[in-house]
């Protein structure tokens, strides 16, 4: 264990050297290969030990020490945390490319076009053409994507990854907090790409529909979604109906969401319409009605119950039969209840 910790610490220091120091000026291809090998070693360490809380704690402590000492020496140093370990090779690459002292010959080597792969040549990983390959993959995706449905492949891969990760987090124990934290972090990062995030969630739910192994993460995701109205309202209506059909809890939650949307509405006299007053209005009264109808069609048992609730709400609003005074009344008449 001692040796492993030492290696871990040394690799993080190596990364710092690669990213911030001028000694890389003297590096050659063999140094770069070795650095990547060490990074790969740390990735391997992570995959072996990340589910072991005791060892994880020890490693985190070691990392903290190393980070501290590096921070004292290097201005503007960004810490390497335990959860960064599985991407260490990528971080090394980013560091190298951002370091202006890296000799141009190394860059040329990294961007060289990969020839036929020669696996047996050296003991060290062949890093020639590493960047070239990445660029090729990215470009190839862009070239091929007009032929597929927009973002279909990307969203599907992301959805799959998401579910895998959830599954892994949930299988560790009964504590759901890491999974919630994960989803929360991702959502937060995707703040600007709300639509893309919804596509991913959609794909995630669709691909795991019939998969027996994925029921736990799927349930968890559905639970989590119930409170995230901003995401819910951007999901495709058909998907929501399917989900409502499947899960009773989701059904009730979805109904609650629809009711909440209704309660947020205000009547605009000039337009003669109910309009949502929240910051991101996306549902019109018409759409809301359609959604209710679709929901009742899919889940007939809900109709009676909801009718009672809506009637009660209408009564609490004064029980008028005039349009524009109570959203509940107008809803009831639109739904022919």
């Amino acid at each position: 264990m001692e040796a492993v910790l030492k290696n871990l610490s040394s690799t993080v220091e190596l990364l710092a050297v690669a990213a911030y120091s001028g000694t890389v000026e003297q590096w050659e291809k063999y140094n770069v290969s070795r650095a990547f090998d060490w990074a790969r070693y740390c990735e391997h360490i992570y995959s072996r030990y990340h589910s072991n809380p005791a060892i994880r704690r020890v490693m985190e402590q070691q990392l903290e020490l190393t980070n501290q000492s590096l921070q004292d020496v290097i201005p503007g140093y960004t810490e390497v945390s335990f959860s960064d370990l599985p991407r260490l090779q990528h971080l090394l690459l980013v560091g190298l490319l951002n370091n202006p002292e890296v000799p141009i010959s190394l860059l040329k080597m990294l961007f060289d076009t990969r020839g036929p792969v020669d696996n047996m040549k050296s003991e060290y990983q062949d890093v020639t053409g590493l960047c070239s390959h990445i660029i090729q993959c990215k470009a190839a995706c862009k070239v091929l994507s007009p032929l597929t449905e927009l973002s279909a492949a990307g969203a599907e891969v992301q959805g799959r990854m998401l579910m895998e990760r959830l599954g892994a987090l949930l299988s560790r124990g009964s504590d759901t907090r890491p999974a919630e934290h994960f989803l929360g972090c991702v959502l937060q990062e995707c703040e600007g790409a709300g639509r893309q995030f919804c596509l991913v969630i959609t794909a995630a739910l669709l691909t795991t529909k019939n998969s027996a192994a994925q029921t736990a993460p799927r349930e968890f995701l559905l639970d989590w979604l119930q409170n995230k109205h901003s995401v819910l309202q951007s999901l495709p209506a058909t998907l929501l109906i399917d989900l409502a059909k499947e899960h009773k809890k989701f059904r009730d939650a979805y109904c609650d969401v629809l009711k909440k949307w209704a309660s947020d509405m205000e009547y605009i006299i000039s337009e003669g319409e109910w309009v949502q007053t929240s910051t991101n209005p996306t549902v019109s009264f018409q759409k809301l009605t359609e959604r209710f109808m679709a929901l009742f069609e899919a889940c007939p048992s809900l109709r009676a119950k909801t009718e009672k609730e809506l009637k009660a709400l209408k009564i609490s609003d004064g029980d008028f039969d005039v349009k524009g005074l109570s959203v509940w009344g107008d809803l009831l008449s639109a739904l022919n209840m």
Partner: protein
Amino acid sequence: MKKLPLLGQFLGRLCWNPYVTAGDTSRNLLLQCLWGLYSEHPSNAVERKANQWIRKVLCQLATEEDDGVAQALMKHMGVPAKEYHLNVLTKMVALLQENVGKSCCSLSNINQRCSCDNILATSDACVPLITCPEASPLIGALLQQPVTCVKEALSEDFLDALSSAYSSRNLSLEEQALVSLWHHSLPSLEEAVLSLLESVTNTTSTPQMLHQQVAQSLLPKACAQHCSLFLVTNDIFRSVLKQAEGNESVKSLVQTFTRCFLWELALLQPQTSVSLKAFFPQSPPSLLVPLLTLPSEMPQESWRNHLNWLSGSLQRLTEEEEEGNGDSRSTRGHYKVFETWFLLVQCAHWVQAAVQLLVTSPEDCGPLLRLLTFYHHPTNRWHHRALQLVGAREAWEHLRSVFSVSARPPIDRLQSLVTLPSSPAPLLTLSLLVNFAVFCQQPLSVSTEILQTVVHHSGLVDEAACVLSSLELRLSEGSCLSNDRVHLRIKELQKTLTHMH
């Protein structure tokens, strides 16, 4: 940069164009341009800025993500960018592959929109990705999609790019994909046939090696699957032979190729009797089946009759043509003669059988000698055929007498044979010589010495070895009752010849 200051901007824009960065060659060129702009020892601010900019662009290209969700996922899931992009690409390729497989222009439903446009667009999009290994399943699927539509489904750029990548060995294709490529694009087939011809004529190879080369080129297999490919290949062979009818390596290539082709054809359609006429439309139909039958498929006793009949038919055909067009020197007249001869070249196993028969049972050698003379000298230029026939008979008789004397013949008897290369039909005489050495009743030592002397003095060691090898090949693969004695003699003679190098 001084002359064209906007060059930097242009290059910068190109870096972000995926159609440029996806293809190996274009990406390479772009990077070479960038390296060219980089100054190792910057001497002024402009150069320093340029250096900085180049580094920044490269860093961005390799590490920046424009997809926010992807970045979030990668960061929180610990998936490195390379793995992520690889996954996405693989998934996309699989999706497109599925689409290609599904779309099929079915003539039954005319109202259904032709999906060939999709395939065309996909093939166009794949042009920069030809050498990308992750895209190869899609390329294979595109190539092997059944050709059902009247319109050309695959873009020409795509086929051209594939063809040149394959021939410069930047790409490896699976067998069926290669066959489809040849089927779609005739230029690529022509290139394959020409490169086979080149490799065969540049190196002297034994018959076994030749067989292997031909089989490995996958051309026989492709031709067995598509009749049109066989016809084109044969046309190429025809034009080569018309210009160089004496070229023995090309002749043996044609023979080996035809044999491999027939074997592949038999594999493909074991039960049904193939309409050979479709594959050999220009050959005289009466000779087709008799010539294509292998000697090993017939009992040895019936060879003579068969060969006599063949010889007679050939003679009739050639004389018809030549006399029929006596005065008119049109090439039309010799068309049939050429096709007959070409078919004989394709089925040269009968020529070899004739040589063997001449040596082992020498009665009534007339028809056999005529057959051999025709094979080696198809054109009756200056009406020399009669003369060549006489020369062939003389050579045969001379050899017979040399090999029938039980004592070692004196050197002067072999004199005329020694001047082999300058004689009218050196290869005819040489094959007779080798066959005599193998099949005669003389003790092996005598035969060996005769062969050795003649070959050494005439300098035709390699050619003799070739004849010997092809004889061995023919005897061992057929069900000829080749006894041990013959094989032993062949082996010994081969040893002698190899020691002569």
